[in-house]
C-alpha cells in the first residue's frame, strides 16, 4: 500500500514543479516537456534518478523525467554490452515500446476520429 503513497507523492510533486514553472515563468508546455526529458537524462547520468525510481516506482518512471531515465539507462546498458555503439543504439531501444505505441495508436486515432473544432 505504501508504494502507492510514494508513487502518488513523487508523481504529484514532479507535476507541481512543472505547473509552478508554467505559471511563474515563460516556459511553454512544450519547453517543459523537453526540460523534463533532458533533466531525466542528466539526473540519471549523475546517479540521482535511479534511487528515486527505487523509492517511488511508477511515481518516478511515469513523468517525462522517467522517459529520460529510460534513455540514459538504456544507453548505459548498451555501452556495457556492446561498447561505444551503445551510445547510438541504447536510447531508442529502451524507449521503443513507448514511441512505437504512441505512433501506432495515434495513427489509428487519426484514422477513426475527426478533429473537433476548438472550444
Amino acid at each position: 500500500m505504501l508504494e502507492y503513497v510514494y508513487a502518488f507523492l513523487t508523481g504529484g510533486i514532479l507535476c507541481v514543479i512543472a505547473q509552478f514553472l508554467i505559471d511563474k515563468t515563460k516556459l511553454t508546455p512544450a519547453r517543459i516537456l523537453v526540460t523534463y526529458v533532458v533533466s531525466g537524462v542528466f539526473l540519471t547520468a549523475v546517479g540521482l534518478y535511479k534511487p528515486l525510481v527505487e523509492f517511488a516506482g511508477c511515481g518516478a518512471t511515469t513523468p517525462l523525467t522517467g522517459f529520460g531515465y529510460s534513455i540514459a539507462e538504456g544507453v548505459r546498458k548498451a555501452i556495457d554490452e556492446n561498447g561505444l555503439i551503445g551510445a547510438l543504439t541504447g536510447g531508442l531501444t529502451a524507449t521503443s515500446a513507448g514511441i512505437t505505441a504512441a505512433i501506432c495508436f495515434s495513427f489509428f486515432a487519426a484514422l477513426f476520429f475527426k478533429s473537433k473544432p476548438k472550444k
Partner: protein
Amino acid sequence: MNLSKQTYKKYAEATAEKTPCLKNCIKAFLIGGFICTLAQGFFNLYKYLGIEEETVKSLVPVTLIFIAVLLTGLDIFDDIAKHAGAGTLVPITGFANAVASPAIDTKAEGFILGVGAKIFTIAGSVILYGILSGAIYGVIYYIVKLIMG
C-alpha cells in the same frame, strides 16, 4: 494612491496571481499523483498476472499511452488537461497527447503531408533532445569508463 511601484507589484501579484497558481498547483498535484498511482496499479496488476518484470516496465507506459490517445480521440483529454495543467502534461500521457493531437488535427491535410509530416510537431522536440542528451551521456560514460578502467 501612495503606493510605490514595488508594493503595487507585490499587491497585484498577491491578489491576481497567487490564487490561480496555488489552485493550479494543487490540481496538478492531485491529478498527476493520481496518474502515477494508476500506473503503479497497472504495474502490480501485470506482475500479479505473471508477466515478466522487464515486459511490465514497457507495458505500463504503453497502457497509459493507449488511454491518453483514446481520450484525445474522444475529445475528452483536453477537458481534463484544462484543469490538470501539468498534472496530465508531465506524465507520459502528455507525450501521448502531443503525438495524437497533431495527428488527428492534420488529418484534413492528408495522411502523407498532414498526419505523417506533422505527427511529431511537438513530440519531435522531446525525442530529439532526449535522444541527443542520451547519446552525449553515452560518449561521456564510455570515456570515463575507459579512463577509470
